[in-house]
Each structure stands twice: as structure tokens, then as C-alpha cells.
């Protein structure tokens, strides 16, 4: 029978980042199982934005250190491509007084942690994005370190580095069961074709399907998935440096280094589930809002729309760590729409937890027990 030291389920950015970080710390028998192809789940469907601007100290540290790692990822992973990191910043807009007051607190917190964000007036916002129609804008925050990264290329960079270090990556390989021993410890995984891999450690990095991979081990994870729609335009000449984001509208819009604009808008009525279809209504929703805010975009053509799934937790913060009832079962799930940008640190922290190494950063508050204890995390800056 085939044996492994660690089996990772999920070939998105988090699965490959965890795999690489285990391998680079000396783990040699790591197997990564992916049901379809790399980045075919939420990673490859995401908005491709990365930002340091968060509202809790933990998220600021996780995001800051992830971006610092992204900055040198091509070199660290000896990638023969380019992850296409464009640091044009994020301009986050405030349309309500209460939001503006929260943004002032956020910037003070971010600055105390070395994040170079700042408050901007409507006039300054317009200098940063000349085609922005400021309207009833109160102000905003801007951080020049934030930006865009190509999720496929970043996943490929991690996956190929992991493979060079000996990680076995199996695509088109669906896991159907996780077996435990008499003491309740992880013992093996069973694949769709009947093959069994014996392993003392399983990592659930299954993104929007994490609850299903939880059930395989008898673990009821407090997560659900919900659809978010998105579109991309034809490439046009560079005209927008930063991501423009409004929590009030649930809207984000960024021009990639390739020239295309990626944009999306939240729908509060979106039902829970695994549907990755798309609607005409979304095109009208996002087009109406974005062309009101930035009329110059009226002339840019949409070439493609799709959708992806957020894996949501009750406090919209991820769950990281071992499940106490099932020793050897680790999760990196519930990223609630911001798993891509945190992946460099998620990989480091999960590898340290699994190998029993001293943690680079204390994220014990992200363990699954916080929900039962009522210790939810209150992050004010989510879209």
C-alpha cells in the first residue's frame, strides 16, 4: 500500500503553498490531491487583488507579511515565469461618516504595524484615479503596497517549486473518504478509483468544498459556500493604477498589468451552495455602479464573466489548525473571499503547525474552537 507522511487535499493556492512550505522545511513524502486542475476552484476565479489594508491587527500582520513574501516570490520559488505583481495600490472609498471614522482607526492601526497606508481627501483620491467621479465621497484610504497578482501564475510558481522538492502532485484525483484508527486519529485517505494512501496527517485545503472534505473525517466545519460573480474586460492602455474599492457598494475594480479591468460586486441575496453559474443581472449591476463611479469605463468592453465561491465562516475569518477531535486532521479553510492574498503566510503557518515548529506568528485565535467559545473576530474591512 502507498504511504505518505502528509496528504494535502486541494490544489488551489493554499494547498500548493502549504505543500511548498512543508517540502522546503525538509518534508519529503508529501502528496497533494486535486480533484480537477490546479487553481480550478476559488483561486483561479478570484479577483486577483492583494492588500495590506485590514482592520484587525492579526489580519494586518498576515496580509502585510504575505505581500512582503509575494514581492520576492519569483526569486524565492525560482519561477521561470512571472506572478505579475503590480503594486498600484488599493484606494478604498468612504461614503458614510461612520465608515470614515472606522477608516481613521484602521490607518492608525496599519501605520503602527509599518503598513504605509494613508487617509486621502476626495481631491487626492481624484489625483490618484483621475477618472473617478467623487460625488458624495467623504474620503478614502490608500496603500501603495497593495495591488494585483495573477492567481494562476502564483499557483504554478508554488506548485512547480513544491514538485522540484519532491512533492507528488496528482491532478484529476478525487478523495472520497478519510479513515481513522480506533483512537480517532487520521490513518488513510481513499481515492475515487479505490486506491488507498496511508498517512498520519491530512490537510483540508479544499476551499469552497472544505465542508465536504470535513464530512469525510466526521468533522462538521462551521462554513458554507456562496457564489460571487466577476467579469473581465478587453485590455486597454494603462489608465488606473490602484484597485478602487467601496465597501458601501460591495464593489471592486482594478486594471491588471495586462491592461484588462477585473471587477465584481456583492449580491446580498446570493443563496448558499455550490453554483458557479452567472447571470445577466450581474452584468447590469456591476456596469451601472462602476460606470457611475468611473464614467470613462463605459467605453471598455466586457469579454468574459464567471463566478467563484467564497467559503464563509460565521466571522468571515479563516479557520487554521488541527481539529482537536481528530488528531492529524488539519484545516486551512473558510477564507471568506480573501484566501488568495493570505496564501504565503497560510503556507508558512500550516507547515509550522504540522511539523510542530515555533510559529512565525501567533494565530491561535483562528482555531476552530473559537466559535463554540463565542470568541468571534470582528474585522470591519471586508467586501
Amino acid at each position, binding site marked *: 500500500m502507498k504511504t505518505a507522511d502528509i496528504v494535502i487535499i486541494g490544489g488551489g493556492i493554499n494547498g500548493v503553498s502549504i505543500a511548498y512550505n512543508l517540502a522546503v522545511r525538509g518534508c519529503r513524502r508529501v502528496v497533494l490531491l486535486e480533484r480537477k*486542475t*490546479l*487553481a*480550478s476552484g476559488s483561486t*483561479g476565479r478570484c479577483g486577483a487583488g492583494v492588500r495590506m489594508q485590514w482592520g484587525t491587527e492579526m489580519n494586518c500582520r498576515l496580509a502585510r507579511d504575505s505581500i512582503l513574501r509575494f514581492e520576492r516570490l519569483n526569486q524565492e520559488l525560482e519561477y521561470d515565469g512571472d506572478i505579475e505583481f503590480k503594486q498600484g495600490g488599493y484606494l478604498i472609498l468612504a461614503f458614510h461618516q461612520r465608515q470614515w471614522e472606522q477608516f481613521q482607526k484602521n490607518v492608525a492601526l496599519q501605520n503602527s504595524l509599518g503598513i504605509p497606508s494613508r487617509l486621502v481627501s476626495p481631491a487626492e483620491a481624484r489625483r490618484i484615479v483621475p477618472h473617478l467621479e467623487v460625488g458624495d465621497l467623504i474620503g478614502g484610504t490608500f496603500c501603495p503596497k497593495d495591488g494585483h497578482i495573477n492567481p*494562476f*501564475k502564483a499557483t*504554478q510558481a508554488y506548485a*512547480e517549486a513544491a514538485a522540484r522538492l519532491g512533492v507528488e502532485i496528482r*491532478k484529476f484525483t478525487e478523495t472520497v473518504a478519510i479513515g481513522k484508527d480506533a483512537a480517532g486519529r487520521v490513518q488513510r485517505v481513499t481515492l475515487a478509483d479505490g486506491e488507498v494512501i496511508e498517512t498520519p496527517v491530512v490537510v483540508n485545503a479544499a476551499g469552497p468544498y472544505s465542508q465536504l472534505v470535513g464530512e469525510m473525517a466526521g468533522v462538521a466545519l462551521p462554513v458554507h459556500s456562496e457564489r460571487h460573480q466577476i467579469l*473581465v*474586460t*478587453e*485590455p486597454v492602455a494603462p489608465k488606473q493604477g490602484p484597485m478602487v474599492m467601496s465597501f458601501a457598494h460591495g464593489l471592486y475594480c482594478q486594471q491588471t498589468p*495586462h491592461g484588462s479591468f477585473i471587477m465584481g460586486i456583492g449580491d446580498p441575496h446570493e443563496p448558499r451552495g455550490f453554483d458557479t453559474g*452567472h447571470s445577466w*443581472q450581474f*452584468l*447590469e*449591476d*456591476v*456596469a*451601472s455602479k*462602476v*460606470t*457611475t463611479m468611473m464614467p470613462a*469605463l*463605459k*467605453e*471598455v*468592453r*466586457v*469579454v*468574459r*464573466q*464567471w463566478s467563484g465561491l467564497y467559503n464563509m465562516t460565521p466571522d468571515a475569518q479563516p479557520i487554521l489548525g488541527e481539529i482537536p477531535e481528530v488528531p492529524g486532521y488539519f484545516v486551512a479553510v473558510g477564507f471568506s473571499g480573501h484566501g488568495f492574498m493570505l496564501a504565503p503566510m497560510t503556507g508558512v503557518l500550516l507547515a509550522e503547525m504540522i511539523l510542530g515548529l515555533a510559529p512565525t506568528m501567533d494565530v491561535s485565535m483562528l482555531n476552530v474552537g473559537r466559535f463554540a467559545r463565542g470568541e468571534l473576530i470582528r474585522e470591519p474591512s471586508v467586501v
Partner: protein
Amino acid sequence: MEPSEKSPEIIICRCEDITAAEVRKLITKGYRTPDEVKRFSRCGMGQCQGRTCRNLVLQEISAATGQEVKDIPMATFRPPTKPVKLGLFAKARAESAAEGGGDR
């Protein structure tokens, strides 16, 4: 001469300027479905959404793997079928609102 040996500088995807050599490199690395070639290279992601390169990519995969073209799954088709200006969608929403259709 096998297709995989033909001029590597040939442009497979005219919208995104992707050459045969780039497509073949991905296939050699193990990215052997049209969706993988599309997503990891942007081949077929441009204005024409793969109308021209779709069949060329299938041929390249077939030549490299020995699979018959008919057995290779097509890349995902996504709307809109042809490029549409954002302003047109916004106008459609404004007109339906004016007609009392509101936010459907």
C-alpha cells in the same frame, strides 16, 4: 513533420500574442487540457475568446499526447459571446428602470 516540430514562433493566439512554443512548453510541463493551457498562458482569453486558437490548441495537445482531438474536452465557454461595452449594460439597466422594471 509533426505539428510539434513546426516553427515555434508561430502565433497560436492572435489576441494575446501566444506562440506555439509557449503552448508547447505548458503541455510539456503537464498542463494538458485546453482549460489549463488557456488559464496558465491566457491563450484564448482575448477579444475573440478563442475562436481562432481553440482548434490549434487542441491540435497541439493531440500531437503531444496522442489523444484524438474528439476525446479532448473543450475549454469552458463563457459569456458574453462577443465583447460588449460596459456602457451598454448600464444603459440597459437604466432603461428597464425607467420602464418600471426596476432592479429585477
